[in-house]
């Protein structure tokens, strides 16, 4: 299907159409921007850099009930089937990140909780025009208008949006939008193209990643890891806000006679993460934990799934309280003589 155009006076109508399903858009929750359900069309404002919490939080929520039960009972109360969702305004890096998380949750067996939600969700991407200072998506095969993981890509042309349907879900949305849309003209497509180009040129941070997986294996015992992790506080800001981090813990929580089994985000930066019942911890210090975080993204995941589990969104850099900078680590890895 060819590209369409949505003029901004029709945007309200488009949002209304999307609201027939459960619509999530970036919104201020407390003091930060994250994806949250829309309750009225007035809340939709697509002018933002990127959300602090990535959209993975909708498909892989921080706390998810797997089932509920009663003390002494034998019946499991399963959660309701997920409803159809639309995520509007997903940045291309975060959409790519979902394709990475997909690999994990459909690895040996499909994780029903994630996969069902994922299948029932339409991702409407929004091309970046003002990348952040720590963005480095172009080094990882992405870009400000990368299409991976996106069903329908929007580009803000000023007076309207260019809509590029990329999958059947995207095409269906365009069909449903019907008269709200017009056929995009050649100059609209050109305008979008040059906006994408301009945005890519604004990305200043770069890294050559080809040699990193191999290098990491060789640097296992390098003093680098101690030096990098000296300042680490061991908090979970980098991992919780990472769009590809997907580790979770499973907890049984009883309140009175009612219990639930739930999964919650976990972080390899926490001491508890690898702590054995015996008291032994195979990753006893922040050195091993930092080494694991980098290795998981740039080595283990590559071996298991053939792709680096980082999309260059820059959140871990932006949010580290002590300026531990993944690009700084990677450039040291690249430079390190073996």
């Amino acid at each position, binding site marked *: 299907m060819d590209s369409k155009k949505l003029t901004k006076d029709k945007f309200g109508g488009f949002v209304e159409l999307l609201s027939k399903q459960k619509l999530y858009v970036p919104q201020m*929750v*407390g*003091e*930060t921007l*994250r994806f949250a359900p829309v309750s009225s069309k007035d809340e939709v404002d697509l002018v933002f850099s990127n959300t*602090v*919490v990535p959209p993975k939080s909708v498909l892989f929520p*921080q*706390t998810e009930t797997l089932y509920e039960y009663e003390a002494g009972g034998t019946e499991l109360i399963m959660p309701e089937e997920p409803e159809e969702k639309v995520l509007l305004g997903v940045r291309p890096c975060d959409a790519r990140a979902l394709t990475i998380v997909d690999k994990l949750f459909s690895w040996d067996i499909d994780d029903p909780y994630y996969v069902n939600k994922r299948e029932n969700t339409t991702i409407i991407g929004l091309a970046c025009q003002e990348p952040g*200072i*720590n963005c480095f998506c172009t080094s990882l095969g992405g870009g400000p208008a990368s299409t991976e993981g996106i069903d329908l890509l929007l580009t803000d042309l000023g007076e309207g949006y260019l809509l590029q349907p990329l999958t059947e879900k995207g095409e269906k949305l365009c069909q449903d939008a019907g008269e709200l849309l017009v056929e995009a003209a050649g100059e609209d497509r050109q305008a979008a193209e040059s906006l994408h180009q301009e945005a890519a040129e604004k990305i*200043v*941070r770069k890294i050559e990643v080809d040699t990193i997986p191999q290098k990491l294996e060789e640097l296992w015992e390098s003093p680098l890891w101690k*030096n990098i992790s*000296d*300042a680490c*506080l*061991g*908090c*979970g*800001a980098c991992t*919780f*806000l990472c769009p590809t981090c997907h580790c979770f*813990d499973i*907890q049984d*929580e009883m309140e009175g006679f009612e219990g639930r089994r*739930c999964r*919650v*985000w976990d*972080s390899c930066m*926490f*001491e*508890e993460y690898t702590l054995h019942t015996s008291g032994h911890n195979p990753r*006893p*210090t*922040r050195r091993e934990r930092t080494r694991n975080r980098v290795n998981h993204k740039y080595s283990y995941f590559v071996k298991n799934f053939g792709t680096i589990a980082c999309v260059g969104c820059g959140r871990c*850099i932006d*949010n580290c*309280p*002590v*300026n*531990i*900078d993944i*690009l*700084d680590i990677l450039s040291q890895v690249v430079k390190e003589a073996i």
Partner: protein
Amino acid sequence: MVDLEKLKNVAKETVSREDVKYLVGWRQGTYGFRVSPHFMTKPEDADKLIFSPLCVNNLATYLTLAEKLPVPRGEEPDTRKVALMVKGCDSRAVVQQLIEKGIERDSVYVIGCPCQGVLDLEKVEEKFPGVQSPVDVQWGDDKFIINLPDGTQEVPREELLAQKCLNCRYPNPVISDVMLWEEVEAWGNGEYADVKELEAMDSQERWTFWQEKFASCIRCYACRNACPMCYCEDCVLDRLNPQWVFRSNNISENTVFHLARAFHLAGRCIECGECERVCPMGLPLMSLNRKLAKEVREKYAFEPGLDPESKPFQSSYRPDDQEDFIL
């Protein structure tokens, strides 16, 4: 005034001492206005040291954060000192740790850096957005001198001063083994204007306010881990048996987490503001801590982190302590 040459020389001498393990100071970060804690083990590392209005991190947290692994059989534990650079507020954390016997006096070598107030990262990044290359910032008379890639800017001090510094009464380290330069004059009066705003709300308004804040907490524990006074080896939040706080992220559990932390800090928080600074979700955590600090100061004329020989707040009972809140 800041003397970088002296700072580097003292650092070189200090790490060369036989009784010093390593030194923790500050270095320029990898981008913009960020700095990073700098761990030095040899004199050459001193070249990277800085002391500027960007040095906001309270490094005292590293005294208790260092992991203590079991000493292999036949080896002696390393009992050498950790050398630490401190501003006035940071030094109070060292003193409070000494009061609580969290650390021993001869385990630390304190290098005092009298401070004229640090920058509020959020304010400066908002004023000068999109600055990628590392920026050098200096103190001027009543202003900050900011050397941006496209020229130098001077900004009045009040405009960019960190919240915790606006009302600072302890800009000079209250404990030190060596003081790097002359002390500065304190400017704050220690009033709690921000707390009074919250106190003016009725309880329903206040509950709504905090509910909204706690709901957005992601429980990354950056606040706890950055806090120099949160150094329990076995944190109540991590316990699994009994499990006092569920791992589920919801208003109820998040509220328990934040209130537990706040109460554990009553009479101990030295108001360095690190919890609030490191919070990726922008929670105003210092409002909780300052409310309790205010109560402790006004009701019991007690301030933590000033005299290493004093007793902790909870064990400093006096017969004339106020007790009108006891039913």
